[in-house]
């Protein structure tokens, strides 16, 4: 079971008692911790965990504890801004800004039609905002181009679930993690990206010894250090590993033949694709010793229950969707789904990215409706009281495809809501050049790197200043009450969208305003009607019930009034042609299948196995770029630091970027800890201090992606390639090629100078000076000799996240080899 005890984590800065505590949910990461916001004199002054919330029982992560500080940051945007003729962003009234936007929209609709407009939103707003984006975007503007930064973090979750099970929605939940015998964390560094969930896992492990943890990661992360078995694979080899493991499981006789026969289709085709993945071949490609693979195969064959979680190591890698489908195949082959303690739990990257997918602000139509199914569009037309012919049909376009459309002059207006693409998109210089071509509306709390290309900036309210709901990674809808009013001059996302719809005079078939609601709760009530009878049915929820139960997992209906802990307990999957959220895609090329092709599969309520063919990463080390580059998050920061960079504590904990280099590579190159080096990829270069250790394997470097200011030259996405997964269109941030260049100056040794004297002169240790020059002793230098001196040294004092209150090191770690 989950937590034995509550523990209220709290971070308040208040002179005197706070005036009130307001019910809310943490707005960072996808775990979904319950919290309360401290209010004093109508200002947010702190936060504490909600001890009654089953997800966290009062615990908060380091970012969660400090998220409130950004609200009172002195550089909040307090008025709209418009770019003037001199190219400067200057304050404007809301009327001026909205009129400019509406005129530009109308002009574009006239000149290029609805697909001349793209809306690119976020995974950190509220369900009600996303639902309104879906309605305004699809029914109002009529654009097909709705996407979000969820494309960067969670699109693969959606597409692997559509492929295997017919609809979105994580089959397993955190409750299953609490019960499982074996937990496979696949590319999921939960210790740093979901600290409270990790603590929950390790708390149980400390008490009971369970679960047995298999961590799959090319890096030796904090998560790996708490695991029982580490599968340290080479970058870009997720699919070979999974194919090899599943082949072993089938060889071991672990298939649940009855389950396969009764509840699935496609097993034989899937099995055929595994043939080449013998343990030896798998080992050759992944770099994992055969003995380790066999041990993992044995464990996965014998475990009575299994939960597999995935995150960016799976989603942002080559073959992302295919790898996640391979995980689904594994669970289906063993019949380990829809049962307590079992199932795939593909995570989400942001606190409400799942909500955006569910309500149709991104990807498919609201409530898991298939954009290629005429019946589903007719349902939406009826629900929204508009003509079906006005709703765009067909498979969605991801952000990278939209950038290509901009390059080809097909898009004129880009509405950017609550995200900072010029730090978060891969190959960001290309993204910047594209966005410079179009009219960019930016809706945010602060000026960001993306402001450089914004034509209008709208100041939006933050967490704590508005009401609404979010969906976490295990389908739980959590409520957030408004704690304080937004600062004067600032509006909520929902208010902005409703105002826009009014100004555009969007109306339904009866001449009534397209958006008939004016509050978040009214929006939620309308959304509930849209969800009725669909997989994500929320008709059994109300704001009051969400607060009373501390969140509810969909579906929640009259028949399931408390929601649903895990999906598919009846082994019926939403794959019938008329009900499915997708006709699925070709598992290799990503081409959307037609209705006729899908019908031919005759899934009819059964889950679908897919053959998982390996296609290596599109860019691999070689020539001038001999090393792998991977990017990722730190425990201390969230995305592009728009919020966490404004917390003094978090910023002090991780003040700048760095590159993690394996100690063997550092020795070979003569690089020392803290030395500023240049990382060069075919797209660009950055200069950051080196952090040396064994967290990355030889031949691989890691750069955190949070640090993207235009001035500091630390942006990981100046380096990354902009290739995408063929199914989910998620960029493959985890695999690019690069090289390390040393930045050195020369010192000519003068008569009488010693190594100690020279080291002192440049503020270095003697040991570092010797390492830099590959000298064995301090006694061998000669007058007139040239010594190399790093041009800059910066400490890399990234603090380890220590409040892991559970001693998770008591289980010995089994390393490969």
């Amino acid at each position: 079971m989950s937590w034995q005890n509550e523990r209220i984590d709290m971070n308040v800065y208040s002179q005197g008692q706070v005036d009130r505590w307001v019910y809310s949910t943490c707005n960072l990461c996808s775990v979904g911790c319950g919290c309360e916001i401290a209010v004093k004199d109508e200002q947010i002054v702190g936060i504490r965990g909600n001890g009654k919330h089953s997800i966290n029982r009062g615990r908060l992560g380091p970012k969660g504890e400090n998220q409130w500080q950004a609200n009172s940051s002195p550089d909040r945007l307090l008025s709209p801004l418009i770019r003037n003729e001199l190219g400067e962003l200057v304050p404007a009234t809301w009327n001026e800004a909205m009129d400019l936007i509406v005129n530009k929209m109308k002009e574009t609709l006239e000149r290029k039609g609805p697909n001349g407009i793209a809306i690119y939103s976020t995974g950190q707003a509220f369900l009600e905002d996303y639902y309104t984006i879906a309605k305004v975007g699809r029914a109002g503007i009529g654009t097909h181009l709705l996407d979000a930064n969820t494309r960067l973090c969670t699109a693969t979750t959606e597409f692997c679930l559509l492929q295997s099970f017919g609809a979105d929605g994580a089959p397993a939940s955190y409750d299953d993690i609490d019960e499982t015998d074996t937990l496979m964390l696949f590319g999921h560094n939960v210790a740093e990206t979901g600290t409270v969930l990790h603590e929950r896992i390790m708390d149980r492990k400390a008490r009971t010894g369970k679960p047995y943890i298999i961590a799959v990661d090319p890096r030796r992360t904090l998560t790996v250090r708490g695991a029982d078995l580490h599968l340290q694979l080479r970058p870009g080899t997720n699919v070979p590993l999974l194919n090899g493991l599943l082949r072993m499981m089938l060889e071991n006789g672990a298939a649940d033949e009855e389950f396969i026969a009764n509840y699935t289709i496609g097993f034989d085709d899937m099995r055929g694709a595994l043939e080449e993945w013998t343990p030896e071949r798998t080992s050759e490609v992944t770099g994992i010793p055969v003995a380790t693979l066999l041990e993992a195969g044995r464990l996965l064959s014998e475990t009575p229950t299994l939960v597999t979680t995935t995150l960016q190591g799976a989603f942002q890698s080559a073959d992302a969707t295919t790898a996640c489908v391979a995980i689904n195949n594994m669970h289906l082959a063993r019949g380990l789904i829809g049962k307590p303690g079992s199932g795939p739990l593909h995570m989400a990257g942001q606190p409400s990215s799942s909500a955006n997918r569910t309500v149709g602000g991104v990807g498919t139509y609201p409530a898991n409706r298939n954009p290629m199914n005429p019946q589903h569009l007719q349902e939406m037309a009826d629900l929204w009281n508009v003509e079906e012919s006005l709703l765009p049909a067909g498979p969605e376009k991801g952000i990278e495809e939209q950038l290509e459309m901009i390059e080809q002059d097909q898009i004129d207006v880009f509405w950017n809501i609550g995200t900072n693409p010029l730090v978060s998109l891969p190959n960001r210089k290309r993204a910047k050049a594209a966005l410079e071509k179009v009219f960019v509306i930016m809706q945010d709390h602060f000026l960001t790197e993306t402001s450089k290309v914004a034509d209008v900036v709208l100041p939006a309210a933050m967490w704590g200043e508005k009401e609404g709901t979010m969906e976490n990674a295990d389908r739980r809808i959590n409520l957030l009450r408004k704690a304080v009013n937004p600062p004067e001059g600032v509006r909520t996302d929902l208010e902005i969208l409703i105002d826009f719809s009014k100004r555009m005079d969007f109306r339904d078939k009866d001449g009534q305003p397209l958006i008939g609601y004016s509050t978040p709760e009214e929006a939620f009530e309308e959304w509930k009607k849209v969800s009725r009878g669909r997989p994500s049915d929320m008709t059994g929820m109300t704001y009051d019930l969400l607060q009373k139960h501390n969140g509810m997992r969909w579906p929640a209906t009259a028949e399931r009034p408390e929601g649903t802990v895990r999906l598919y307990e009846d082994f019926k999957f939403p794959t019938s042609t008329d009900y499915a959220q997708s006709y699925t895609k070709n598992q290799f090329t990503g081409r959307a299948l037609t209705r006729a092709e899908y019908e031919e599969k005759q899934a009819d309520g059964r889950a679908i196995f897919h053959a998982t063919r390996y296609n290596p990463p599109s860019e691999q080390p070689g020539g001038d770029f001999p090393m792998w580059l991977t990017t990722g998050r730190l425990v201390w920061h969230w995305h592009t630091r728009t919020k966490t960079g404004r917390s003094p504590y978090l910023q002090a904990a991780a003040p700048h970027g760095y590159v993690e280099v394996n100690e063997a590579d550092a020795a070979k190159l003569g690089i020392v800890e803290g030395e500023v080096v240049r990382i060069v990829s075919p797209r660009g270069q950055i200069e950051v201090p080196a952090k040396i250790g064994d967290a990355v394997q030889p031949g691989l470097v890691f750069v955190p992606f949070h640090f993207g200011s235009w001035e500091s030259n630390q942006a990981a996405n100046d380096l990354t390639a902009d290739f995408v997964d063929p199914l989910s269109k998620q960029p493959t941030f985890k695999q690019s090629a690069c090289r390390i260049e040393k930045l050195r100056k020369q010192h000519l040794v003068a008569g009488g100078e010693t190594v100690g004297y020279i080291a002192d002169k440049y503020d270095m240790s003697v040991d570092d000076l010797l390492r830099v020059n590959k000298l064995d002793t301090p006694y061998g230098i000669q007058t007139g000799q040239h010594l190399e001196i790093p041009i800059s040294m910066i400490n890399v004092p990234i603090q380890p996240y220590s409040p892991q209150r559970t001693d998770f090191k008591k289980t010995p770690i089994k390393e490969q080899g």
Partner: protein
Amino acid sequence: MSTLYPLFSSVLKEVEQILKETAEMSHPLVVLFRTALEDERQALRNLLPILKQDSPALEDFKKDCSVVYLNDEIVESTFRAWLRAVDWMDHEDSEEAAKLENRFPGIKKTLTEAAAEIENAYGDDTSKYIVPVLYRPQTGGVR
């Protein structure tokens, strides 16, 4: 013969030419778009005999027609990714890749023209679920 025949016929010629010109290449992105193009080629081969009729029924060719468009939707961006990939890594295929660059916009133009023909001949409502939205005349929304 349907007015669509010459249009799809010219697409088939282009597709076959690209397949021929990339036959020896093995970059992962080439493998990807070639697999899609082979699928597209098969659909075109199924489609063309039907389009030889004067007024073919849409029902008889809508599946293959969609397969052609849905492949084209993914092929061009994968091709452009390959162009970038070989350029960045100074790959041996770099020059050959650049020579193919103009073929894809040509295919898209022809397919857009065909989309308008389909819409004229069979109606907007019918073609909506056959031809992807970005090939069709830009309409939609309640404005």
